[in-house]
């Protein structure tokens, strides 16, 4: 299966970079039928661009059941047990021939978030630990245009890069068993929105009324890898108004071309 969002991602980035840099990759078996390929452990736009380009080049092989992209890794899942020597040698060769692609179609999405302590369960705790005011915390969280690196953890969960260092915070030692859909969290140097009720270990700063995953739509996720997300602070009244529109199926997330 061709991963359209990643083609777009490659397309976007190919405009800004003429030469595709090569990294020193490590290849590891991941169980009997998957290979984990790792890049330097950083959240870095050059690295994710390189991963996406590599992924694009190995999409179409028959014995591959899926590919999983993350910040600094690409996991190739095969539909049977793998001879690692043969497959890894082949992947290494393929990496040498990876090429960038053309064109761009990315968007910047305006996502409303209510940063009220009723929703932002850890808002005051983070402010205390970071020795800043809650207002400053919200200002720092709404300032960047976050890059969508990949979608994972659960359907429609966007991994965003660009979180300000001043509000980075490790995951909670004991994950919460239930975090409400729409909750906006901070986990280490990452931030993101929980698209459905679930367990999770991130520190919660607020809640968005927007649906990030809807299987009834042809594209269940409105955002894709390569898009950008801008959070906008809203009050509780605005939150409830938008929530009503979302439930009625009348709300469309707002975007501008990147």
């Amino acid at each position, binding site marked *: 299966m061709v991963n359209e969002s990643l083609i777009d991602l490659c397309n976007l980035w190919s405009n800004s970079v003429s030469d595709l840099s090569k990294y020193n990759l490590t290849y590891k078996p991941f169980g009997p039928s998957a290979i984990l390929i790792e890049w330097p452990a950083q959240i870095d736009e050059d690295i994710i661009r390189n991963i996406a380009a590599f992924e694009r080049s190995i999409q179409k092989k028959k014995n591959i059941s899926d590919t*999983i992209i993350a910040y600094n890794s690409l996991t190739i899942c095969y539909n049977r047990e793998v001879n690692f020597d043969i497959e890894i040698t082949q992947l290494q060769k393929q990496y040498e021939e990876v090429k960038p692609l053309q064109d761009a179609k990315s968007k910047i999405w305006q996502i409303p978030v209510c940063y009220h302590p009723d929703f932002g369960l850890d808002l005051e705790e983070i402010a205390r630990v970071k020795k800043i005011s809650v207002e400053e915390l919200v200002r720092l969280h709404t300032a960047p245009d976050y890059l969508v690196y990949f979608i994972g953890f659960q359907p429609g969960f966007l991994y965003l890069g660009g979180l300000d260092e001043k509000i980075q915070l490790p995951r909670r030692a004991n994950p919460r068993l239930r975090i409400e859909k729409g909750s906006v969290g901070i986990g280490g140097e990452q931030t993101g929105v929980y698209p459905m009720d679930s367990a999770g270990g991130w520190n919660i700063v607020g809640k968005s009324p927007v649906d990030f995953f809807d299987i009834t739509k042809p594209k269940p996720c409105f955002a894709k890898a390569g898009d950008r997300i801008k959070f906008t602070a809203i009050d509780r009244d605005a939150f409830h108004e938008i929530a009503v529109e979302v439930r009625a199926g009348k709300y469309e997330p707002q975007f501008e071309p990147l």
Partner: protein
Amino acid sequence: MIKVLHAGIYNTVQDQGRPGYAKWGIPVSGVMDQYAARLANTLVRNQASDALIEITLGQGKFQFSERTDFCLTGGDYSPKLDEEVLETNRVYTAKKGAILTFGKRNYGAISYLAIPGGIRSEVVLESRSFSKGITQNRLEKGDELKILRKQTQSEQGYARIGMREEHYHSPTLSCFRGPEFDQLNEKQKQRLFALFTLSKDRNRVGYRLNESVENELKPILTSAVLPGTVQLTPSGKLIVLMRDCQVSGGYPRVLQLSENAISALSQKVAGEEVSFEITEQKNG
């Protein structure tokens, strides 16, 4: 048609799952116990890809709306068809209106109910497997399940197949070193290969173990996880990810279960012992 009279704890329709949608963060899903599900489909002469009903901890009650053959495999919870006591791994014929119930646990945790022709639930992204956010979460009281292909009853009858005892009773789970295994020190490795017990915190996403491994490993930058990945959480507790697990996570991945071990683990209940045993990778 099969009607759900009691929903049970968490019963679903499952087939071989929906791999290939990691780009939207969609779990692979599919039957928890590949061995028992394959056996069930074989017994009623189905294809391996046919969907079955997955029953958790012997909870639930079903009614056959028409005369049909069926079989049960996996966990044995003293099944009964009306007043008749049933055996697992054997094909029976239910009369129209007959009711299937369960009782005392003999062994296992997950049972499969297979019908010749397979269960017909909605196909979403190439699979009938139930999955949170993708299809209905689980079977509810009043649900009516149709059969995909009408099959004439077999004149030759059906085979009876002997059960693989160790699948349900051995504590040993064969596994491979996980991507972060080498970051563990000797003391941690020693603890990792001693006995663990299963906690009550178990579902299709993952099984949590009771005992802790002393842990000072840093979380990793979010990376892929797979069904069978054993994660070491900051509190030192281990989580074994199962079929509905997410596609990525941030806890160190210390072990990766073999396919057989995932199936065997799915049959364990709270308090049962498990121990991990490294299987050498064939090459690489």
